[in-house]
């Protein structure tokens, strides 16, 4: 089982680059867990919106470079090795990353994985048309033999009607010499409403098909694409809303960082007690919904 060892968030607006945000978040996360950085076997970056619309190398490799983590195999006295790559599944990226990490841990391939999220406008400056907040987040997952906590099965639901709700791209021809500085994000008017309904169906199916009573869920931690998204999800699912972490009004839409941020804030508010069952619900373009139960 993959268990969350520590989380961190960085909301410092003076930081411009998504790499800088990610590095700060990763440093804090590892310090909090008291882990040596060279013990991280896998580093996954899940941000979609990168500095300068960079396509190569993996952002995770650039983050690993800045973290000074297992930089080289030559003259490496600690014997450690880190493998870095990016996952680009938008708002659901965290649960896709956990899904991947779980199997590597089950097979004994890795012990510690660091998942880092940060999205910025490619210009690294504020842009009113960019809907996502500049937040860096990191979570350290460690393998545990115990079966009574950690992540349970994660499922993904996607729509097949071609009505994606949100599309984003950098049109490199139209942008001329400014290809590093702009991105287009088109959001349908009915996107957030449809996404909420879609996520409710996914979460309800998840709980029912696994015979998990709604009353066992202490709280949900979900994507935050619009104000009240989590509250609406909780109500529709019939989950006690007293501990719902609805963060849009305070943080805006943290996109790939939303689930890590939600877990971090829930912890700060004292909502995470041993053996509590938390339901993570990712929701984003596609439409895509991801659900996974986590036992604290």
């Amino acid at each position, binding site marked *: 089982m993959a268990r969350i060892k520590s989380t961190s968030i960085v909301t410092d607006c003076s930081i411009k680059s998504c790499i800088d945000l990610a590095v700060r978040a990763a440093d804090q996360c590892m310090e909090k867990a008291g882990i040596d950085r060279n013990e991280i076997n896998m580093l996954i970056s899940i941000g979609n919106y990168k500095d300068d619309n960079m396509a190569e190398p993996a952002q995770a490799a650039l983050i690993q470079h800045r973290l000074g983590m*297992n930089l080289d195999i030559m003259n490496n006295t600690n014997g450690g090795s880190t493998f870095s790559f990016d996952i680009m599944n938008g708002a659901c990226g965290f649960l896709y990353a956990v899904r991947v990490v779980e199997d590597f841990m089950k097979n004994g391939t890795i012990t510690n994985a660091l998942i880092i999220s940060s999205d910025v406008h490619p210009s690294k400056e504020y842009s009113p048309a960019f809907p996502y907040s500049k937040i860096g987040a990191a979570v350290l997952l460690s393998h545990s033999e115990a079966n009574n906590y950690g992540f349970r099965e994660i499922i993904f639901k*996607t729509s097949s009607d071609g009505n994606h709700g949100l599309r984003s791209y950098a049109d490199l021809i139209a942008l001329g010499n400014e290809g590093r500085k702009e991105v287009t994000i088109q959001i349908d008017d009915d996107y957030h409403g449809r996404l909420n309904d879609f996520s409710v169906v996914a979460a309800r199916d998840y709980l029912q098909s696994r015979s998990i009573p709604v009353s066992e869920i202490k709280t949900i931690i979900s994507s935050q694409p619009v104000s009240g998204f989590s509250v609406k999800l909780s109500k529709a699912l019939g989950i006690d809303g007293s501990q719902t972490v609805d963060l849009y009004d305070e943080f805006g839409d943290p996109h790939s960082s939303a689930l890590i941020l939600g877990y971090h804030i829930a912890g700060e508010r004292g909502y995470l007690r041993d053996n509590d069952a938390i339901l993570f619900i990712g929701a984003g373009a596609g439409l895509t919904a991801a659900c996974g139960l986590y036992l604290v």
Partner: protein
Amino acid sequence: MYKSKFESIGAYTPEKIVTNEELLTGKDASILLALDTAGIKKRRWRAQSEDSVKIAITAAGNCLKNSSYKASDLEVVIYSSITRFHGGLKHHLEPAISLLAKNRLGAHSAINLDITNACAGMLTGAYILDNMIRSGSVRNGMVISGECITPISETALKEIKDRHDDQLASLTVGDAGAAFILDRSDDENECIEFINFTTIAAFAKHCIGVPSNRNPGPAMYTKTKELYIESFKRLPVFLKTVLEKNNKSQMDDYDFNIYHQTSPKVIELFRQHLKYYFNWEPRGVIVNVDEYGNTASTSHFVALHNAIKEKKIPRGSRVLFYSAASGLVLGLLSAKIGSLGVRDGAN
């Protein structure tokens, strides 16, 4: 614990062929000489209507033609390209391209994952999928990639000064798509034996792919020589460690060795380097970069596809794949190849 195997493979390369002479008309003669010396003769070039998504989906369709699975059987679809062009030169970010592919193919029950890891993308996809199959959480899945990468050549042609320019490597690339299906193996003679990866992040900035700030379109800036030197130094060290860890493996056991297809010259230098380092003659070194260019994340699998199509790789062959990609990513995949066949008619 289960093992996985290569169940099928497919590829797609555009019809149009561009030679060095055609590419470099009117350019500094030293550039043509540099490409000729490297052994690259030609590359495939996308049609106007082709982009990363189309190229990837065509390759995936070809893979299904060579498979016993239908799209609806697939449990995982992983998109793994560097380039993400969709609808012209639009660098596509959301929704995931694996979602577009899964819907187009009809793989409706598949988990769709987008990953990016430079030229190590498809092999990283294999690493992820192999771990999913070994843990028992899925029985099969497909890794796809569509590299619409000649746009970096177009940018380089506008901006390159001479053969020392950091965009020289951008002229060595070719467009291609590839796809493979892994599924659970019950046969020790047909399986993936091991996959190992590491990222040598000390050299993370040696190859950067980013839009040009002087012309419309994508560009790639590479410290080519340094990257080769540093990866040459480390890949044998990594290989030795990995073989020791997987203690049954001897280098002599490999019938075929497939390196990342950067250039015939580099592949030959690397072959000699391995020979010197291990006192061992690598057999079955497969080269197709002279004809197809460096097709980025698809290069190993375009090479494997073509070799299988030409019936060069008999059943039971042991194949070692070597990854050396921007990051700097080093990876090794050891497989016993079974009854892979190619009936897709791809070029």
